[in-house]
């Protein structure tokens, strides 16, 4: 059996799935501030209530929005330095970043170097005093992580590697993120992605250590994995080195889980949790990515992220009524934004007056008293006026419809799948004029299920000089690299398939350079 764990902003959920894909057990508990005790609770419940022995579990799969929350709230972010290896530029780093997050980038140095397009080095070796000074600065400023970004590093990685080796020798504790391992061409987007990766390195390292301890205590001695932004698994080694690849794993799992639970490969997914609602698109069972450069918290990054609209309200978002003026959460935007931009900010800096109740309570107030959902709720609903509740419901539904419309390919009529704990009440209200509206039986556990069924995946973005080899030979090499990585990560050889293969020639250079973008998946051998 497999265990899937989802640590959401409000709830932590876990499921057990049999090898044949049957849901054998489930547990849910509030996400705790320390993350870990919430996980401990759900695992305990799950094993105990279903009479499962820990040794029956062959693998554990974890998806979480925790990393994204770390970025939004700032707790646990490593103080980070940026080293550019390039011709010194006047372009600032961190353009378009949220100021609070940018504060964690402590300083930037531009070390002369880098390559031009043809691989010609832009300056000679750096002299030792210069490097010594850099190391001294790293020590004195007390940063925990460093991001190293060189021009054309995706083609020529030597300088980034050499710098990393030097720093590693001098400062073994420093977390080092190298841009060529994180993103492809596009200097500023790659720099952003590398910085975010570096900032999350300590949180990830600590999490892995703590989780290993926790699973050990629970006698769960099987291997475990994180899941990544495309909803495939991420080994612990890679998770430790590339936490940036796991920032959007929560929603990616939810999207994959929705398609899996409903058996509908092409759908729009509405995942309403406790504090936010995410709306995304699944095609062929795979979470859809951004076509162009993606944004994370408003920052352009060349990470491959699922295309999701995040709305800043969920089932537990408080509703305030002041002089007949209704405010849901902190504010009420007309429409959503890219992945992760909306976050439960309203839970901090709470307004002084008490909330009339939660969004869920407003929905329940509109149901007859004898309705099973209302009886199930078990708590008093607060003092709602019928008209206020009605208005809250109407506005919520209108915003959701508008968001679905945005993702709905105008005339395609994709079915809408409702998942997440907060979505229980939506089914009654979200009459959907274009297509089917489906809520799978295990809708509250969709994300944990999605983690459980995650494939082994690999995405390679390689640029090859075609001086001494043919295009076919170069492509074959990249494909081999993908297969090797999948096998190394535990994929069944027969199950490997290439889901995406692209070649992008470079303009103005005749047939000498080519960029391959490849994505392959395989089933995990357990």
């Amino acid at each position, binding site marked *: 059996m497999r265990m899937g764990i989802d640590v959401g902003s409000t709830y932590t959920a876990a499921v057990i799935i049999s090898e044949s894909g049957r849901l054998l057990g489930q547990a849910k508990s509030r996400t705790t501030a320390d993350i870990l005790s919430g996980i401990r609770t759900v695992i305990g419940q799950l094993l105990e209530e279903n009479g499962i022995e820990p040794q029956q579990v062959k693998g554990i799969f974890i998806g979480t929005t925790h990393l994204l929350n770390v970025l939004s709230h700032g707790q646990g972010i490593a103080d980070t330095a940026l080293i550019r290896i390039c*011709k010194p530029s006047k372009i600032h780093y961190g353009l378009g970043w949220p100021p609070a997050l940018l504060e964690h980038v402590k300083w930037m140095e531009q070390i002369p170097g880098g390559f031009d*397009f043809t691989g010609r080095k832009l300056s000679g070796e750096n002299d030792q005093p210069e490097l010594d000074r850099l190391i001294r600065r790293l020590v004195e400023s007390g940063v925990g992580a460093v991001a190293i970004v060189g021009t054309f590093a995706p083609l020529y990685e030597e300088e980034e590697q050499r710098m990393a080796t030097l720093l590693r020798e001098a400062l073994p504790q420093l977390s080092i993120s190298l841009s060529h391992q994180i993103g492809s061409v596009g200097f500023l987007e790659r720099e952003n992605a590398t910085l975010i990766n570096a900032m999350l390195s300590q949180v990830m390292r600590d999490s892995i250590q703590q989780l290993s301890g926790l699973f050990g205590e629970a006698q769960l001695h099987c291997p475990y994995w994180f899941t990544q932004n495309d909803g495939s698994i991420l080994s612990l080694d890679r998770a430790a080195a590339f936490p940036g690849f796991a920032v959007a794993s929560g929603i990616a799992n939810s999207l994959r889980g929705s398609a899996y639970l409903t058996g509908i490969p092409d759908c729009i997914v509405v995942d309403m949790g406790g504090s936010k609602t995410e709306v995304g698109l699944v095609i062929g069972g795979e979470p859809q990515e951004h076509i162009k450069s993606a944004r994370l918290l408003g920052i352009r990054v060349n990470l491959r992220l699922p295309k999701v609209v995040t709305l800043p309200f969920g089932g537990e978002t408080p509703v305030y009524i002041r002089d007949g003026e209704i405010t849901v959460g902190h504010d009420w935007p007309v*429409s959503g934004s890219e992945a992760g931009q909306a976050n439960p900010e309203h839970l901090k800096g709470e307004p002084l007056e008490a909330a009339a109740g939660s969004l869920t309570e407003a929905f329940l107030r509109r149901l007859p008293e004898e309705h099973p959902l209302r009886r199930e709720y078990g708590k008093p609903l607060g003092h709602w006026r019928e008209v206020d509740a009605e208005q809250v419901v109407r506005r919520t539904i209108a915003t959701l419809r508008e968001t679905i419309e945005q993702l709905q390919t105008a005339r395609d009529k994709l079915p809408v799948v409702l998942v997440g704990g907060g979505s229980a009440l939506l089914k009654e209200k979200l009459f959907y004029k274009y297509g089917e509206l489906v809520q799978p039986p295990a809708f509250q556990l969709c994300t944990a299920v999605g983690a459980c069924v995650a494939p082994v995946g690999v995405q390679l973005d390689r640029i090859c000089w075609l001086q001494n080899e043919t295009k076919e030979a170069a492509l074959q090499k990249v494909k081999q690299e993908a297969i090797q990585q999948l096998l190394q990560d535990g994929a069944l050889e027969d199950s490997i398939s290439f889901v995406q293969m692209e070649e*992008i020639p470079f303009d103005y250079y005749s047939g000498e350079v080519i960029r391959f973008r490849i994505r392959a998946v395989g089933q995990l051998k357990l």
Partner: protein
Amino acid sequence: MRKIESHHLEDIALGAAVLGTGGGGDPYVGQLMAMAAIEKYGPVNLISPEELDDEAWVVSVGMMGAPTVVVEKIPGGQEPLQAFEALKAHTGKEISAIFPIEIGGINSLIPVILAATTGLPLVDIDGMGRAFPELQMVTFHLVDIPSGPVAMADEKGNSVIVNGVDSVWSERIGRQALTTMGGSVTTCDYLMQGFQLKEAGIHHTFSLAQRIGETVRSLKHRNQSPVEALVEEVAGTLLFTGKVNNLLRRNSGGFTKGEVSLSGLGQDQGRTFTLYFQNEFLVAEADGEVVATTPDLLTVVDVETGVPVTTESLRYGNRLAVIAIPCNEKWRTVKGIETAGPRYFGYNVDYIPLGEESKERRVLQ
């Protein structure tokens, strides 16, 4: 005259990407540099062509090079000024305004940087009304205004002056220098006088880009599909809505040539559509029949958001809408079609002006 401030730049970049018709380079780097320049030097004065003195000397500034290189080779930031100073020193002319050579893509924003840095006004005009890949594909070329002397500057601090006998030669020689200088450079060229610019340029396209950007960005607040609103704003035609089912790219003579096939969605269900592109989308074919070609604009946007898609970022499975926009009348002349029509790009088809084609089709139906 009005001020262009930092918060206008996102709309301009978005609009410029629509008018970039799949090419023109990602305006993002340009947007960031322009933002930094405005923050440092203050807002830019945008003047209407009518406000420009006939005798005044004006010059364009832009970037040249492979889009992939432009986004990777982080600009030093001083290149526009360096190219400008080189040209000024070479010609000895007192230059009093800046204009964009093309309104599509990154080159719509590079002039903002130079205008901010020098304090000179920016003229609301350009030489393409869209994006094209070669230096002579501008309306100035149609009335024999030469591009040269061309000043080129790179991030290393090198600069070059190219004195081609005509624009085609300047382009040829410039390309060689470009490769040596690392694959992307900033150029300052098309030095001319106010009366020439007014006569030969395409007016008010900078403002057009800004309006298009506003339209796409504000769609969320309106009860209209992004694609519909965009079509309305640009007075274009929605040619097709479909999903990418085949994508071919090959490199030929230093340019990417490719074609992308779409299978129809919704109203276009059962139909097929093919777009041929080099840097830009150039020829559109519906069910095997040519329906639109360069120099008319073929712009491709994401069905869901209305955000333009570049030829580089096309992927299998993308859901796209193809919109055709009539080009400026200046391109619809014999020389215009010779310079930037489908045959120049190696497609064996004749140019069918957008409006006329649809009239013919209506008669046939």
